[in-house]
């Protein structure tokens, strides 16, 4: 990809990342490995739970965001950094249950850029990331952080 250096990233730039359908089979497969609560793994038990049916693990909704982010970056999407390593995240919120069969549409928006004293060749980008349902209602959000390389001397793009 060209561009995508720390210097190229603008605060406020926003990008739609695409959508994902959460099938019941996929929800259950993820949760059996990583989040074996009844409303994630057992359709009958889930009906009797406070959610009234199968819902996706919140970590599953986060992992899908990552996949769509990588895909968008690989396609050379503008406004996305060439970074890839992250020190962590903040304020992960699962606001509405993501039920089997639902489609979430994801987005990312740059909200902050920070220089790193300890690593002058890198900058830190903070982003606000969202997943919305078919009605545009917010189901999932978090603040992401990513290390992004600064443009090496002599690079023009």
């Amino acid at each position, binding site marked *: 990809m060209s561009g995508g250096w720390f210097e190229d990233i603008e605060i406020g730039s926003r990008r739609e990342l695409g959508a994902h359908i959460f099938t019941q089979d996929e929800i259950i497969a993820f949760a059996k490995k990583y*989040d074996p609560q009844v409303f994630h793994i057992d359709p009958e038990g889930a009906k009797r739970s406070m959610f009234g049916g199968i819902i996706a693990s919140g970590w599953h909704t986060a992992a899908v965001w990552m996949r769509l982010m990588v895909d968008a970056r690989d396609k050379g999407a503008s406004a996305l950094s060439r970074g890839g390593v992250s*020190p962590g995240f903040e304020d992960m919120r699962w606001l509405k249950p993501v039920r089997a069969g639902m489609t979430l549409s994801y987005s990312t928006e740059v909200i902050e850029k920070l220089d790193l004293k300890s690593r002058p060749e890198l900058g830190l980008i903070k982003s606000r990331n969202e997943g919305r349902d078919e009605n545009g209602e917010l189901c999932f959000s978090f603040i992401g952080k990513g290390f992004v390389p600064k443009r090496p001397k002599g690079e023009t793009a």
Partner: protein
Amino acid sequence: MELQHFEDYPVGRIVDCGTYRVGKDEILEFARQFDPQPHHLDEEAGKKSILGGLAASGWHVCAIAMRLFAEGVVLKADNKGGAGAREGRWIKPVRPDTLLRMEAEVVEAKPSQSKPFGFVTFECRIYNEHEQVAMVSMTPIIGRRA
């Protein structure tokens, strides 16, 4: 088994959430599905990255932390889940075949003023085999009062 309640989680209690060995196949499988970046898929690419070698996706480590948190706390407590995580920090890369260990320490416990519940926040610490903290998360749950 009797379920635990809000009162069973005073500030300072540390819950041993057990261990999880993460193999190379699992690291690659998770990365192919959710985080297909070269440093999670390829040894050489990992070495060239700031991770210094092939390492599990941070989201994979979060998923493992959830599994251990479920076994150690969530499935043993009368609770309404948590609906998020205040923060997560990926501190050390997690290499293939690491035996991870997690403990969850109660750092905040506040009863609801109006409902028969309380809010408990755990600092979940995942250690590698060298007893280094690889990941920390701040994870709340809402526990029913006894």
